[in-house]
């Protein structure tokens, strides 16, 4: 038998031992344990050596913790420190490249838009592929929750990243099965900081930052614009004449208007700025023998690189643990925060990429010969549109009002914001009934209130609503979660170690939203919803309710810490499904080969210090993102004029059941050279079955939304992950650590709802580049094959499926066969398109270098990703021959003297040859990139100096985020995902804004 105790805050301990006791084992997390023979000593003092392998680090797993040494599942850990200084809005944005198997994409450069998180590939098609995020045991809300399309609001930004102790990413079935039904996309467990016994700590962290846009497209200035567009009109007239039609279009693009006013506007200057951000965090923590606490307040105010884009958060946290009796303790975690998001309409969020007011699109599209302001200082406007300026409409000969907004009016008068107010936390009690048996109960809440507002000034209004508009929405997300667990740990004969967990969890979630749109402002004086408007219309009303009940268990067993086994089971009932219950499980085995005697005694053991082999298999489910009432046949109520209606609103499926993932994983952890080189490797295979898909309904059936959800389809993700950390150089003064991770991914769609089905995913409702088809990776790009520009006549050539090469003569002969000049049918994306893909990176990872010389530290962190294709739709718009401005490379267009040109002969109103109206391969590019995501240089003030002023630590640093980007991609940013987190819509770049480069200076001090 054995007995034990723990030390007090000063490291003192007493223990009475029976006379038979021979030795004491001292252990501490993160240190090597040490066995000391008792002999006849009455005082035994030991110093433990720091363990460098990390094997004894504690990993947070579902409903508990485990030593990494005993872990058989796949769990990646990221410490809060690694992300604490990143100038982000939510912690998930800072996880890029930090953990193997976790791919995080920043879809655009708007503050607080939710990153796209994919753990080992896309794991669903219709439901969410995002991971379950659990904060201190309570599942959190995630995903953009703003009702106003222009402004994103990621509820995870309510958690102050500075309060995070660690993030543990559960990846395989063994690790995730305990979360059963919510685990298909993986689980990220976030643990907030705790106080430590006997320590009193006060710290203040701050940074200030500046952000700027990078890689903006270079577009034509006024002179070149006028040249190109008039040439295009001339060519249009020639085309018209060639078919015997009237050629009366006016070369109406001019540099100067009738009053002699001219402009050469760089529209970016009115939309982008140098953003400024600051962050302050103050926390104090400590503890006595009975009570520990951590408390913090935080404030951040971030103004982005886009005018009017801002994020603010005020947060406070109190975490308390209190030992009531020696075997009974209680705890509390509570965080409260207020966030404020504001953003102009960038067209980059909310499926609005083609919006005529999107600021991703406006500066590259607006004619540069239009002025933002009239000579008298008023904005240049014609109704809600920008004024005609000097331009004459080639078709009509009248002033050319183009129907796009003037961004200065938009930015001055319109407002979009989303405010959040969250309380998140729990109370818990732990009772050690008998030695080794611990009962725990935890009751948590997560309540968020969102207030979303849009205001359009009547001075600009919206193009569809020139009278001005104010929209307000109020949403509440309310969740309660109650967990009860019993854990029993027991060892037999000192070799057989068992740990059994049994538990029950119930979670209730209610979401309500109501709102209204008011239009027709009484007077421009009113700039809020509460002002006077002539009409009011309900908008955004929503009600959702769901309930999850679960029973689960886990058994961990190890023999002598050499042979490890874990079995997880979970039974879940979830309200949204017609078939309520699902059973899930995960099992894993591990073998620590290096613990074997033969290994320890072998000659290579010194060099090859650790080898652990693990394997797991299991079945988990997915209910993330399914609508609460989608399995029911329902009717909703609307209007017919002044009367109400009742309409068939959803065709349910009485057999709708869980989406299931079968995950298997084989891995190894290893250590070489006294663990100077450490790493782990794993192979994963994730078969998603019973994918919930909209079984496509013929539109002529008229089923509401043309969809009925069914459990059809399957998909597989396979790949390998490798993590390596190398202490390249370690010395008292100089220290160099290199670490890196890489993950490969092969995604294959195995079956869809019907044979031969092509599942389209549209962008902004106007363009469809992504199609998902069996045998391909999800959402590949279908594009007709462009053979470039015909040197003979400057026409775009497209290869059709039958081998014909067609060329396009706008408003002239149209499509003709290059071979014989005869008319031919227009190429068609569906019949003539070829697939480009995958759009999901086939490899991705990060590479981190840390140098430390005395007080100086230098960090270089590179994130990389590749193997994927991007549909650069922005590029097609940039070469469109309507009145739109063009990228400077349009100057290399075909003319009679420049026959070997990059771009076709320009013909006014031609939107086909450039790809606006036809998805073509010339706008498909490879997306490989390496980004120097973070460079930091810090200086820690030397200890002796600090002690004199009673300071525990102090560090100042400078940092650059997104310092450099290495890519052949011609667009603004290869990470852009215009379709956000859409599983089958990745790899589309359409009018979105790119990521900023941010420079920060920070300081932290601890007492």
């Amino acid at each position, binding site marked *: 038998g054995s007995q034990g105790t723990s030390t007090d805050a000063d490291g003192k301990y007493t223990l009475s031992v029976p006379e038979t006791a021979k030795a004491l084992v001292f252990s501490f997390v993160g240190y090597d344990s040490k066995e000391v023979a008792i002999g006849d000593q009455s005082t035994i003092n030991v110093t433990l050596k720091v363990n460098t392998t990390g094997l004894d680090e504690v990993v947070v797993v579902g409903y508990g913790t485990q030593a990494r040494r005993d872990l058989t599942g796949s769990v990646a850990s990221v410490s809060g420190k690694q992300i604490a200084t990143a100038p982000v809005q939510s912690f998930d944005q800072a996880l890029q490249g930090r953990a193997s198997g976790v791919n995080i994409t920043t879809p655009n450069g708007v503050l607080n838009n939710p990153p796209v998180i994919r753990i080992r590939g896309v794991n669903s098609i219709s439901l969410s592929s995002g991971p379950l995020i659990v904060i201190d045991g309570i599942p959190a809300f995630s995903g953009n929750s703003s009702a106003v399309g222009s402004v994103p609001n990621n509820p995870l930004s309510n958690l102050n990243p500075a309060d995070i102790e660690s993030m543990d990413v559960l990846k395989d079935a063994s690790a995730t099965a305990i979360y059963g039904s919510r685990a298909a996309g993986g689980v990220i467990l976030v643990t907030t900081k705790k106080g430590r016994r006997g320590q009193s700590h006060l710290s203040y962290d701050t940074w200030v930052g500046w952000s700027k846009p990078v890689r903006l497209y270079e577009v034509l200035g006024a002179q070149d614009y006028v040249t190109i567009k008039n040439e295009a009109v001339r060519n249009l007239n020639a085309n018209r004449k060639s078919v015997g039609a009237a050629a009366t279009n006016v070369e109406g693009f001019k540099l100067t208007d009738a009053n002699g006013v001219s402009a050469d506007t760089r529209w970016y200057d009115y939309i982008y700025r140098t953003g400024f951000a600051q962050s302050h965090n103050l926390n104090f923590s400590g503890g006595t023998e009975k009570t520990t606490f951590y408390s913090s307040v935080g404030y951040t105010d971030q103004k982005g690189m886009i005018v009017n884009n801002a994020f603010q958060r005020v947060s406070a946290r109190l975490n308390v643990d209190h030992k009531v009796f020696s075997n009974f303790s209680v705890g509390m975690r509570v965080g409260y925060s207020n966030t404020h998001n504001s953003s102009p309409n960038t067209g980059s969020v909310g499926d609005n990429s083609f919006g005529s007011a999107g600021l991703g699109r406006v500066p590259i599209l607006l004619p540069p010969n239009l002025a933002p302001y009239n000579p008298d200082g008023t904005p240049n406007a014609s109704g809600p549109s920008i004024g005609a300026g000097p331009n004459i409409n080639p078709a009509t000969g009248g*002033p050319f009002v183009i129907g796009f907004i003037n961004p200065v009016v938009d930015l001055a008068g319109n407002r979009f914001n989303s405010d959040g107010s969250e309380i998140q936390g729990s109370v818990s009690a732990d009772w050690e009934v008998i030695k080794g048996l611990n009962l725990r109960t935890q009751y948590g809440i997560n309540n968020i209130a969102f207030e979303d507002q849009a205001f359009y000034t009547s001075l600009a209004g919206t193009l569809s609503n020139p009278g001005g508009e104010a929209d307000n929405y109020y949403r509440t997300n309310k969740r309660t979660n109650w967990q009860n667990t019993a854990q029993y740990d027991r060892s037999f004969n000192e070799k057989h170690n068992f740990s059994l967990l049994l538990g029950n969890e119930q979670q209730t979630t209610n979401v309500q939203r109501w709102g209204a749109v008011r239009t027709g402002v009484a007077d421009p004086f009113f700039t809020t919803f509460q002002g006077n408007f002539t009409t009011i219309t309900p908008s955004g009303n929503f009600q959702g309710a769901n309930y999850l009940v679960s029973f689960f268990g886990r058994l961990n067993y190890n023999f002598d810490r050499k042979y490890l086994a874990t079995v997880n089971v979970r039974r879940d009932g979830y*309200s949204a499904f017609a078939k309520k219950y699902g059973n899930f499980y995960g099992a894993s085995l591990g073998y620590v080969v290096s613990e074997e005697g033969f290994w320890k005694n072998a000659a290579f053991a010194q060099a090859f210090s650790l080898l652990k082999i693990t394997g797991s298999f299991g079945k988990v489910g997915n209910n993330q993102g399914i609508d609460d009432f989608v399995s029911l046949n329902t009717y909703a*109520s609307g209007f017919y004029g002044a009367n109400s209606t009742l309409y068939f609103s959803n065709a349910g499926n009485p057999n709708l059941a869980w989406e299931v993932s079968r995950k298997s994983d084989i891995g190894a952890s290893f250590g070489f050279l006294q663990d100077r080189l450490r790493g782990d490797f794993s192979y994963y295979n994730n078969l998603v079955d019973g994918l919930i898909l909209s079984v496509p309904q013929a539109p002529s059936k008229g089923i509401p939304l043309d969809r009925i959800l069914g459990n059809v389809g399957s998909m597989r993700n396979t790949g390998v992950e490798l993590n390596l950390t190398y202490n390249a150089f370690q010395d008292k003064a100089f220290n160099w650590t290199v670490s890196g991770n890489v993950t490969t991914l092969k995604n294959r769609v195995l079956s869809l709802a019907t044979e031969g089905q092509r599942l389209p995913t549209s962008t902004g409702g106007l363009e469809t580049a992504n199609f998902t088809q069996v045998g391909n990776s999800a959402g590949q790009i279908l594009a007709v094959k462009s053979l470039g520009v015909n040197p003979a006549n400057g026409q775009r050539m497209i290869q059709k499926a039958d081998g014909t090469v067609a060329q396009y003569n706008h408003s002239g002969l149209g499509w003709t066969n290059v071979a014989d000049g005869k008319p031919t049918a227009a190429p068609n994306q569906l019949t003539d398109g070829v697939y480009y893909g995958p759009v999901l990176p086939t490899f991705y990872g990060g590479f981190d270098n840390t140098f430390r010389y005395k007080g100086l530290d230098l960090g270089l962190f590179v994130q990389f990703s590749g193997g994927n294709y991007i549909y650069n739709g922005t590029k097609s718009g940039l070469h469109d021959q309507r009145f739109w401005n063009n990228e400077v490379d349009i100057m290399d267009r075909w003319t009679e003297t420049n026959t070997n040109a990059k771009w076709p002969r320009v013909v006014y109103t031609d939107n086909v040859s450039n790809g606006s109206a036809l998805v073509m391969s010339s706008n498909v590019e490879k997306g490989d990139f390496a980004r120097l995501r973070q460079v930091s240089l810090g200086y820690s003030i030397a200890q002796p100096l600090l002690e004199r002023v009673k300071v525990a630590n102090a560090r100042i640093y400078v940092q650059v985020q997104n310092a450099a980007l290495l890519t052949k991609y011609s667009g603004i940013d290869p990470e852009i995902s215009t379709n956000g987190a859409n599983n089958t819509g990745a790899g589309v770049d359409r009018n979105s804004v790119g990521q900023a480069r941010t420079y920060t200076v920070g300081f932290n001090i601890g007492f």
Partner: protein
Amino acid sequence: CQPDKLDPKPEILFSDQVVFSSPARIELQANNMYAYVKSGTFLGGRFQIYNDIRANDFINLRSNGVTGTGVWNHTLTETSQNDVINTWGAGYQAINQINVFLDGLDANESKFIAPTFPANYAAKASNYRGEGRLLRALCYYSLLQLYARPYVDGNGSKPGLPLRLNGQKDDKGNDLARSSVGDVYKQILEDLDFAEKNLPLNNGSATLNVTRAHRNTAIALKTRVYLSMAKYDDVIREANKLVPAVGPFVAPTGVPNALNASVAAVFTGTQETTESILSFPFTSQDQPGTQNQAAYYYLPQNGGGNGEYSLNSGAGGILSNAAWAATDARRTSFVLVSGTESYLKKYPTGAPAPYTDKAPVIRYAEVMLNLAEARARTTSGVDPQALLLLNAVRGRSNAAGVYTAAGLTSATALVDAILLERRIEFLGEGIRNIDIMRLNAPIPGKGSISAVNPTDMNYVWPIPFTELATNKLMTRN
């Protein structure tokens, strides 16, 4: 664990089990059939707009793919979302709502008993069936005008539409072949005949007589349908039920639909004169939706719209046609000159939003001109009644411009005069392109856009790829 919590009841959605449980809920569903047909992407706006801008009386000013550029310049493909895909979808969504309701009326008949239901509810249910069948006919007729060859091209033998006549609620039955144009027209007429027999004579209020179908609505639509099939004798037979041989032109039965004294008055105020036989209403809570409103398309920006389309002042456009006199009330009332452009002001409710002009479907003047054309085409020489009807419509807006038998000289000239009058009278009401195509005539060009001949691929719209991808029996145009 609380098992009932696994079945949360939605607070703003009804179960399909309870929607036929009271007369009030059934009435709500009847309203709903209209609500779907008048979807802004269908007959609440875009359908009418598309059928005007395909032809040559309007000029596209915005080059905006969302507001019909592809329709205007005939470059639609089977993946064109806003027009080809959405119009088809909206039409069939309406058809299915109607079919589901009609099925529900039959399936729940046993519930229609006292005390919940009034004793004479069977008659009320028949009225609803009449409304459903009429609206279904209107949907199929409208879809035919864009997605199928004209009836006269092959006498209805060309591919028409998949005829869905039963409510679709589950995932079965995706595959359904196209019926011929003739068969679809046959069904349309069967539905309209049924509607004529089952609809009430009068709905009891001016608003309901314009916004809900009554017996005259069915008859009026039949005159349009037969005219589209070039079945002129049938047009005459049906129109005679509504149009007396001589003025005053007031329907002798049912709602006293009549030619209003002032055409301007038909399009002002509540737009509920007896001339409007069927129009769809909007309110601030029930708007046509973004970029669907006729006023948004046709009014200039300083007139409350977005100036998407101006009137074509070039050769061939109606604006420059000498037959449309400067003093014509339809010119003085409905043409707004702004800057160098002329715009259509038939839908006056622009700024401030919410664009509550009714969407017109059919009015009495059309029945009169349908009858006039049918008579003109079936009589040799200048048919006196046809001339009378033509002059009644023309003369109310342009008294000095009325035609004389001597001036017209032949049946052909009379027909041409009627077609021209229809262009002027129904400008912006979605009739123009139907009038061209029912004769299998070329769609005239405008500006830099060439004419489209009946033999051209783009004479009719392509079938949306969304249908081709899911309905294996569907065929391309």
